[in-house]
């Protein structure tokens, strides 16, 4: 068993630090809303790593923005609630919410270049919140920024404070963003596709860095990605999103070894394996990714699902638990043996090769 030692033990649940319950996000008018996040719930315990996996349009980034109360103009939380350290975030004043954003929950966004001010030196951008919110003096802030850059592995940190963003490589810029995110000692770090635009070697370095910092600073981590490989090594739990909903949530080992939702399974088998022989056809998911403007009746995955039952096109399948402990939840009524049978000998089924 190589599982994480800090994994929450099912028998004695730890009080979550971040708790999202039935969250829905809508854009547009109340009469014709565009629902981009639907009834999303998850908990993150202190020090835990939650991976949220989904493709474009699955609502994963909108979920994060809603958690931070940073939805774009026209977007609103149309249902559910977000609790951080027990406090309901929607009811907080702007002032208190600003405090939560830096010191409670910090965000590392996808696009490092556009997240940094191109006309301001790294040092000044980093120091600004430390001076404005934490009341540090200019020289103390400078010292802290140097320490932070050193912590995220930037060589010659004092020298780098004088650089402009364009003078840094993509990987270095992402390190600067990480340094800024942890600068006010947040309890929860949310990383939204932090490595998407980066080369594979840099990607591995950044993911390792984020996870090292999490351990060192005792943060919880929510890692949002479209790449199951990226979360495989560090997540304790994974929630898979499709069309604005969480369709399956389980421990990392359960997701990879015994997933129960056809979308999760199809996603896993569509990834080219490292030992995929040349010319052996890949198994992409048929059809098109879901368009949030379309409201599919029943399960949103049913048009692309090879196992769909008649009931799947009529009503939304309920979230069911694979076992009594409630660790593994999924929205699919299809019999697991039918799933495995239809997928052939390479299919993984619960209990086969599972690690936990």
């Amino acid at each position, binding site marked *: 068993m190589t599982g994480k030692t800090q994994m929450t033990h099912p028998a004695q649940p730890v009080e979550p630090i971040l708790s999202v319950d039935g969250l829905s996000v809508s854009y547009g008018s109340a009469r014709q809303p565009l629902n981009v996040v639907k009834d999303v719930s998850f908990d993150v315990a202190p020090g835990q790593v939650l991976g949220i996996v989904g493709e474009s349009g699955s609502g994963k980034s909108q979920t994060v923005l809603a958690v931070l109360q940073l939805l774009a103009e026209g977007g609103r939380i149309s249902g559910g609630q977000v609790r951080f350290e027990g406090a309901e975030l929607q009811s907080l004043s702007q002032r208190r919410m600003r405090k939560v954003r830096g010191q409670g929950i910090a965000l590392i966004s996808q696009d490092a270049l556009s997240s940094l001010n191109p006309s301001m030196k790294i040092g000044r951008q980093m120091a600004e919140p430390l001076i404005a919110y934490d009341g540090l003096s200019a020289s103390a802030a400078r010292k802290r920024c140097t320490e932070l850059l050193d912590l995220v592995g930037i060589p010659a940190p004092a020298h780098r404070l004088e650089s402009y963003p364009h003078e840094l490589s993509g990987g270095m810029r992402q390190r600067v963003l990480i340094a800024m995110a942890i600068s006010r000692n947040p309890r929860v770090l949310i990383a939204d596709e932090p490595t998407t635009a980066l080369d*594979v070697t*840099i990607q591995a370095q950044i993911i390792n860095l984020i996870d090292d910092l999490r351990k060192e600073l005792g943060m919880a981590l929510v890692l949002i990605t479209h790449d199951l*490989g990226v979360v*495989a*090594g560090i997540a304790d739990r994974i929630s898979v999103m499709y069309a604005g909903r969480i369709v399956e949530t389980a421990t990392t080992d359960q997701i990879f070894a015994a997933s129960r939702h056809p979308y999760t399974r199809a996603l896993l088998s569509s990834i080219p394996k*490292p030992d*995929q022989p040349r*010319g052996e056809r890949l198994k*992409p998911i048929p059809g098109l990714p879901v368009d949030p403007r379309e409201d599919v009746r029943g399960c949103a995955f049913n048009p692309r699902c090879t196992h769909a039952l008649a009931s799947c096109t009529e009503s939304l399948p309920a979230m069911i638990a694979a076992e009594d402990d409630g660790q593994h939840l999924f929205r699919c009524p299809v019999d697991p043996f039918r799933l495995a049978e239809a997928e052939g000998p390479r299919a993984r089924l619960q209990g086969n090769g599972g690690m936990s």
Partner: protein
Amino acid sequence: MNQPAITQRRAATGNAVEIRDLHVRFPVRSGLLRRPVGAVHAVDGVSFDIPEGQTVGLVGESGSGKTTTGRALLGLSPANAGAIRLFGKPLEELATPEKDLQKLGQLVFQDPYASLNPRLTVGSTLSETLYVHGLSDGGARKQKVRDLLDQVGLRPEIADRYPVALSGGQRQRIAIARALAVNPRFMVLDEVVSALDVSIQGQILNLLLDLQREHNLTYLFITHDLSVVRYVSHKVVVLYGGQIMEEGPTEAIFGSPRHPYTHTLLSALPVPDPVVQRAKRGLEIRTEPPSVTDPPDGCRFQGSCPFADDTCRSVAPGLRPAPSGQRVACHHFESIDIPSDQIGITRDV
């Protein structure tokens, strides 16, 4: 390394593409008069062949010179030195008139959102390409547009839509259809699936393989994603800092990689398997790309290589054959032994 006189080999080699000692440099200008003060050595002595009907996967990270190599093959990045032959003919001969070269080789880009004109319907985009390449009869063009859409697995109604109404995968199919419009024999595919969702990538890769079989197409498949390259390529060329580090049959590169850089790339690749990923968690992965304006003496990978010694810092390694079938540009590859279950070379550095 001796330069074989490729003039003597003609097309009889069965190679669709032959590149010999390709150099591409971009001037770096500075000051009021924009005087050249140096040069970016984007591609620095690259040679490889692509047999007709096959695929070479050109792998490397940003700045490795992979896109520049692909563009040079289609005459879009002027080579400073070296020779390129397509189907036995020197590129310079093919490059005028430009259309002849375009008919032979086509380029498909990474970003299907930027490579299609948003103001033209899909039908007009394809029709325009056909018109430019001499299909003037309107009715015939319409029919051909329908054929092209069918070839890339799209319904004919798509012709009336604008790119904005299409998904990323559909757009990439249109970009492929546009490239097919001139019946090319060779295609440079530059990161064609990188911008697509994983569930859609496979659809496009399967399509490309089908088209290759049907039309005996030759591909240069440029990517940073090793997992994709294994699936499509007969041969893999690994670039770093404008030079080839390792090249050879796909099975050899993936089965027994010999260059420390190839090891680094493979170990950094995220694998959808928690056991493997956790085991790799302790590996330290370092890469410090070499300066492109002032490349170091010796091996380009020396700055990030745990095995680098004085020889590596002074003498540039040439490509030498390895027993497993590939050629490797490393002074020490014979003595570097990494267990296959431990493809992380930078452990314990």
